[in-house]
Structures are given as structure tokens and as C-alpha cells.
């Protein structure tokens, strides 16, 4: 036998070939999703925000449908009502918001970040001499200076994000409208594609996940809205400057579990420190924010029925980081909601796989 004429025979049966093929398609699909995610992230973000909005508005549409009104009209009524509320909000609050924004912009334009941080340092040193002795005020001021420099450097990116945000104002309502109108039909058509073997499991799973998702998203956003309003009222009563913007920020931050409430309170505390320079006002604001959080924990979260999706702080941190990296500020909030949805999905999937026993089903033995 000639040793150079070796023939390698690979035994590949049909089963392993199909398995490899399946894995190949799974990898290709995964690759496509990642590519789509990176390339079309703005479109994807618009789509995700629309889905969240559709979940938020669904109960209102249903409530109107109960009065024997066709769904399309019910959606129309909800959209018109929202438009009226937003217009009224703009008319009522626009002057104060504009004044706040203008004041911030004027402050930033008039004074160089270095001057601003020096002022901050002086205020701190005057009120807390202990911080000066230990060099803490210098460290704090240099941190603030770096942050402001970075903010100015990133202002072009922020401008791009703003353009994207404006475009979303027009595209999101259109997406949301069609998701509300045809959502059920789209869901049914997708379920129709599932093979018979997994059909009942998928149907049950899809409905459970969509119900849980709905209550989670509605709960989180309503909770954020209530906390935001409470924060604005508190800051306004305490006569803190930029009460509206800081309160709104605290509300938005409340979407993020664990870190959100702390991150939301920081701007208010810093502002109080800069305004009054007294530890008492900082203490009052801290107490007020803790009280709002307690109220949220004991009352509001029960009222809006938040689906308690517990996430470990490290997971929340990673999710915020990834969301922020790919999609910016909006991405952080969307990522937290998305992670909650993912957690609900995984727990429901585990329940279904256990109860539907799709891997244990024995073939039918009787002859017909």
C-alpha cells in the first residue's frame, strides 16, 4: 500500500449534518441580528421605542373599544388626546422650561468651564473648610472641570443625537399607530409560522410574555412619571433653581433600578449646594428624595402594579453601560427595560419547556 495515497473518509450521517446545518443558520441569523443592530441602530431604536409606546397605550385603546367603538377610531381618539395633553403641557410649561434652558445656556456661554468650577470650588471651601484642608475641594473641582470639558467635546455628538431625536418625534407615532392597529394580526401571522410540534407552547408563551411585558413597561414608565412629578413639585416648593429639568431627570432616572434614584438625586443636591451652600438644604433635599423613594416603594409601585423583575446591581450596571455604548442616553433607559423583558422571557421559557416536555415526548405507539 502506498502511504502517500491516504484517503480520509468522513462519516457524516443525516442527523449530524442537519444539526450542523441548523447551527450554521443559527450563527448566520445571530450575525445578521448583530449587523442589523450596529448598522441600523437608529431605526431599531425607533422601533423599540414604538413597541414600548404601543404597550403603554394598549389599555387606553382597549378601554375606548369597550364602548363599542372600532379599534382604529379608538387609536385615533388616544392619539388626539395625547396631542392635546402635550400641546397643553407645552403652553403651560414651555415658558418656565425655556427660561431654565436659557439660564443654563447663558451660564455656560458667559462663563468658561474653568471659571465655573473655580466658583464651585470657592463656594465649597467657604462653607466646608474641612474639605479645603484635605484637598477634597480641589479634586472635586478638577473632576467637574474634566466633565464639563468632555461635555463640550461631545456637544457635536449630542447635536446629532438631537437631530435623531427630532426625527423620532415624527417616525415613532407612525410606527406606534400601525403596531396598535395591526399588532394582533402581526402576532397571529408570526405564530402561524411555528411548526405544529411547538405551536401550543409558543402560543401560550407569546401571550404570557406579552402580558408580562405590558405590565412591566407600563408599571416602570408610570412609576417614573409619578416620581418625576413628585420631584418637580418638591424642588419647586423648596425653591431650587431648574426644578423642572432636575425633577424630570430624577423621574427618568427612576426607570433604572438600584442606581436610578441615587443618580436622580445627585443633580438636585449639587444644585442646592451651589445655590445655598448650606448643609441643611442638602439634608432637606436628601430627606425629601428618600421620602419620595419610600412612597414609591410602599405605595406607587403597588398602585401601578410593577412586575417585580429583580435584577442584580452588577447586571443593571452592565446593561446601562452596553445600552449607553450602542445607543446613547435613550439607549440606557431602553436597555434597562429590555433587560427586564429578557428576564421575564427567560423565566417564562423555562416554565414552558418544563411543562410542555417537548424533548421528552414519546412517539405515538398505537396503530390506526
Amino acid at each position, binding site marked *: 500500500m502506498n502511504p502517500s495515497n491516504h484517503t480520509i473518509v468522513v462519516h457524516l450521517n443525516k442527523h449530524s449534518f442537519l444539526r450542523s446545518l441548523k447551527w450554521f443558520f443559527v450563527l448566520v441569523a445571530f450575525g445578521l441580528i448583530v449587523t442589523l443592530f450596529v448598522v441600523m441602530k437608529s431605526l431599531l431604536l425607533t422601533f423599540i421605542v414604538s413597541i414600548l409606546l404601543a404597550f403603554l397605550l394598549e389599555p387606553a385603546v382597549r378601554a375606548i373599544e*369597550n364602548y363599542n367603538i372600532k379599534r382604529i377610531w379608538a387609536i385615533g381618539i388616544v392619539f388626539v388626546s395625547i396631542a392635546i395633553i402635550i400641546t397643553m403641557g407645552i403652553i403651560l410649561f414651555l415658558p418656565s422650561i425655556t427660561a431654565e434652558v436659557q439660564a443654563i445656556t447663558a451660564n455656560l456661554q458667559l462663563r468658561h468651564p474653568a471659571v465655573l468650577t473655580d466658583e464651585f470650588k470657592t463656594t465649597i471651601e467657604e462653607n466646608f473648610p474641612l474639605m479645603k484642608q484635605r484637598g477634597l475641594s480641589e479634586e472635586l473641582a478638577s473632576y467637574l472641570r474634566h466633565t464639563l470639558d468632555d461635555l463640550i467635546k461631545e456637544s457635536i455628538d449630542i447635536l446629532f443625537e438631537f437631530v435623531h431625536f427630532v426625527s423620532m418625534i415624527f417616525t415613532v407615532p407612525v410606527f406606534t399607530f400601525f403596531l396598535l392597529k395591526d399588532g394582533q394580526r402581526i402576532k397571529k401571522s408570526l405564530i402561524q409560522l411555528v411548526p405544529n410540534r411547538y405551536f401550543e407552547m409558543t402560543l401560550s408563551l407569546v401571550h404570557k410574555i406579552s402580558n408580562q411585558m405590558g405590565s412591566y413597561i407600563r408599571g416602570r414608565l408610570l412609576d417614573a412619571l409619578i416620581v418625576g412629578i413628585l420631584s418637580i413639585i418638591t424642588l419647586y416648593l423648596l425653591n431650587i433653581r431648574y426644578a423642572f429639568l432636575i425633577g424630570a431627570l430624577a423621574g427618568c432616572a427612576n426607570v433604572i433600578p438600584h442606581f436610578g434614584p441615587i443618580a436622580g438625586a445627585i443633580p438636585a443636591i449639587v444644585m442646592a449646594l451651589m445655590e445655598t451652600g448650606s448643609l441643611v438644604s442638602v439634608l432637606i433635599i436628601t430627606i425629601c428624595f428618600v421620602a419620595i423613594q419610600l412612597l414609591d416603594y410602599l405605595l406607587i409601585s403597588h398602585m401601578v402594579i410593577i412586575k417585580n423583575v429583580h435584577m442584580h446591581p452588577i447586571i443593571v450596571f452592565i446593561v446601562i453601560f452596553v445600552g449607553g455604548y450602542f445607543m446613547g442616553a435613550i439607549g440606557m433607559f431602553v436597555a434597562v427595560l429590555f433587560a427586564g423583558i429578557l428576564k421575564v422571557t427567560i423565566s417564562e421559557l423555562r416554565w414552558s419547556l418544563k411543562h410542555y416536555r417537548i424533548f421528552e415526548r414519546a412517539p405515538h405507539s398505537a396503530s390506526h
Partner: protein
Amino acid sequence: MVDGFWGNIFRKAKKDEDNVLSMLKVVPILDGLSKDELKEFERIVHRRHYEPNENIFWEGEPGVGMYIIQEGTIKIYKTLPDGNDKELAILKNGDFFGELALLDESPRSASAIALEKCHILGLFRPELFDILERKPKLGLQVTTKLAQMIGNRLRITNTELQSLCAKFHKPEKLSKIPSHDMLLEESKTILKKV
């Protein structure tokens, strides 16, 4: 020609819709509904196709809803502890099964398998509950029918159990109508004897 093409498509869709509506009309829980109300259900039913020997559902798995046979034959069977299957019923066009799963997620009491190529309509709990939420009057009508149907079945089961008890026990014990607990006890005794 284009008109003819679209005309054919729409005619086919209309025919399919009429066919589904006539199938739904015969289902007891949808009995007495108007055409518009039936159309609401026509929108939520799932059309499924099964090949011979393909299971529709398996015994012991959570039930999601009921099925109406549009075309084909279905066998309902139970798997015995020895691993063999015991046939319970053979169902044909227009028959329906699995309606109790419209109420809750309790496990299926038997399996269902297609004996030939089958076209089946599926009406499922999540979508029924959805109608109940969106159109409470219509939903109430259907759930009342479902409750009536279950009540009737319970009455029939009680009567059958009574006659079974009469076979195994002395007649004087049946002088009064047995309570639910008593029937349960009796059935346990009978099962032990069997």
C-alpha cells in the same frame, strides 16, 4: 385579467371566511351569536394543518384552547401506565375537542392525533380572554355558554356515576341524591374495586 386575478384571490378569501363562519356557528359555545359577533371570533381563530400521525396535543401538557375539525379525522387517546395507548374517541368533520382548556391551564387529560391530513381551527384562551376584555358583553355571552355546557356535563357525569354506584351498592343507599363528596368517595371505592 388583473381584475380576474384579484377577483379570484378575494373570492377565495371570502369563501374561506364563510366556511370558517359556518364551522364556528355549530360550536355550542358560539351558538346564537350574530354574524358580526362570529366575525370577531373568525379573526382570532388559527388555521392549522396536520399530517397523518402528527399530534395536536399531548396528555399532561397545559391546555391552551379548543379545536374544531374543518376536515379530517382525529383520534383522542390516553397512554396507559404500561405504555400502550387506549383509544377514547374518533372525531370527524365539524366535531370539536379541548374546550375545557378555554377556562384554565390545567393539564390535558388525553392526547389528540391526526389520523389523516387534517385542517383544524384553533380557538385559544388568551385570545378569548382578549375578547372578554375588549368586548365584555360578547365575552360574557360566550363564557356563560361555556359554564352552561360544563354544568350540563357535570349533571350527566353525576347521573352516570349514580347508575354506576347502583351497580355496586345496595339500592337503599341511593334513596337520596348523593353529594359531591359522597360521589367522590363512591368513585374512589369503585376505582379501587376495578
